[in-house]
């Protein structure tokens, strides 16, 4: 493809990327890491978690790197003092929204939220934790959802709709009451549309959806969406 390219600066490094590329991709392709949670290569971008917020010189507001396309001459800052502070706040809020206890979580050591907390130096939360007690749905043969650990990134919903193509999963309610549901808020075993494809468990960044009896190292393969999408497009 002979697509047009754009020149811009990310953290003072001059980069050149195809037109329409997102800031996130432009940065990653040039070895600049921006933390993300809801974004996943191969799925449409959501822009919800706000971890990938970056500064653009001359703009009064912050932009999510995952959804904002680059433009010529743009000067992006990905790692200012303020951004680091805001990312810590975001992680603290997610950690204190529901019951996140790493030591007893199935995803311990394989959790993106946990690893980001560690990486960003979130050594405690200024917010009082909200200890939730939502029913765990283990009715399915091997898929389990523990909504106490869900961070509402909607990766599972998007992979179910965009890659598997059944849209079993969606969100119910809104705001802090929002939950991931199957069909008409059924127990998983009663979902008429679920194909038990396991993709939701594979893309879940935390321990909210997992596979009973399977080692977590095998389940948490978040490249699955990109892999399948690439295969499909090649076809």
């Amino acid at each position: 493809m002979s697509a047009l390219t754009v020149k811009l600066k990310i953290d003072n490094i001059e980069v050149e990327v195809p037109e329409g590329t997102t800031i996130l991709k432009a940065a990653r392709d040039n070895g600049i890491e921006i933390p993300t949670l809801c974004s996943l290569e191969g799925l449409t971008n959501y822009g919800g978690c706000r971890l990938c917020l970056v500064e653009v010189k001359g703009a009064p507001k912050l932009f999510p790197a995952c959804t904002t396309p680059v433009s010529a001459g743009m000067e992006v800052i990905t790692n200012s003092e303020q951004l680091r502070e805001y990312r810590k706040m975001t992680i603290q809020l997610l950690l204190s929204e529901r019951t996140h206890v790493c030591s007893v979580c199935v995803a311990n050591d394989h959790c993106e939220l946990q690893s980001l907390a560690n990486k960003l130096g979130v050594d405690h939360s200024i917010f009082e934790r909200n200890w939730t007690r939502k029913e765990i749905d283990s009715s399915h043969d091997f898929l389990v959802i523990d909504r106490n650990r869900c961070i509402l990134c909607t990766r599972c919903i998007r992979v179910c709709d965009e890659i598997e193509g059944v849209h079993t999963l969606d969100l119910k309610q809104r705001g802090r009451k929002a939950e991931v549901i199957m069909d008409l808020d059924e127990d998983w075993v009663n979902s008429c549309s679920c194909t038990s494809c396991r993709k939701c468990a594979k893309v879940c960044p935390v321990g909210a959806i997992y596979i009973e009896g399977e080692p977590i190292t095998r389940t948490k393969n978040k490249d699955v969406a990109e892999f399948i999408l690439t295969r499909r497009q090649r076809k």
Partner: protein
Amino acid sequence: MSAQEKTRVATIWLSGCSGCHMSFLDQDELILDLAKKIQVVYGPLVDTKAFPENVDVTLIEGAVANEEQQSLLKEARAKTKILISLGDCAVTGNVPALRNAWEDSAKLVLERGYIENADVNKQIPTEVPGLLEKVRPLHEVVKVDYFIPGCPPSASVINYVLTELLAGRTPNMEGRSKYG
């Protein structure tokens, strides 16, 4: 170095599994260096009965779950220069705080422990410290200066934090803290 010149360190074990203390002891040969610079003046590792005055550093493991722990924590805060939350229970509440998800959890826990699951003598004891309605991490009760998360925190991180503090530097937890 005489005992007077050594940094006075205390450790406290609140609601936790003692794993953090184990990890503290697990510093291998590094603890020998540390031992030259510090004197442990209070804690499960030593015999002192009352929390002493003029403590330089206090490491506290565990969450605050009952009245006795709450008052000990407050006392320690008042008598310590630098107070450190050691481990996930102290930093987040962790497993001991899981009961917070229930309303009236103190009562439920006691009933579960002393009545439902007891074989004989089913009664809730009265001579032990009363449980708090909510189990809290330390910093929700007193001001905490440094946090070392982990379940348990690794010996090397504990050593890093203490070494930095002894050298008069501020530890940087970015990339070092580790929940779970």
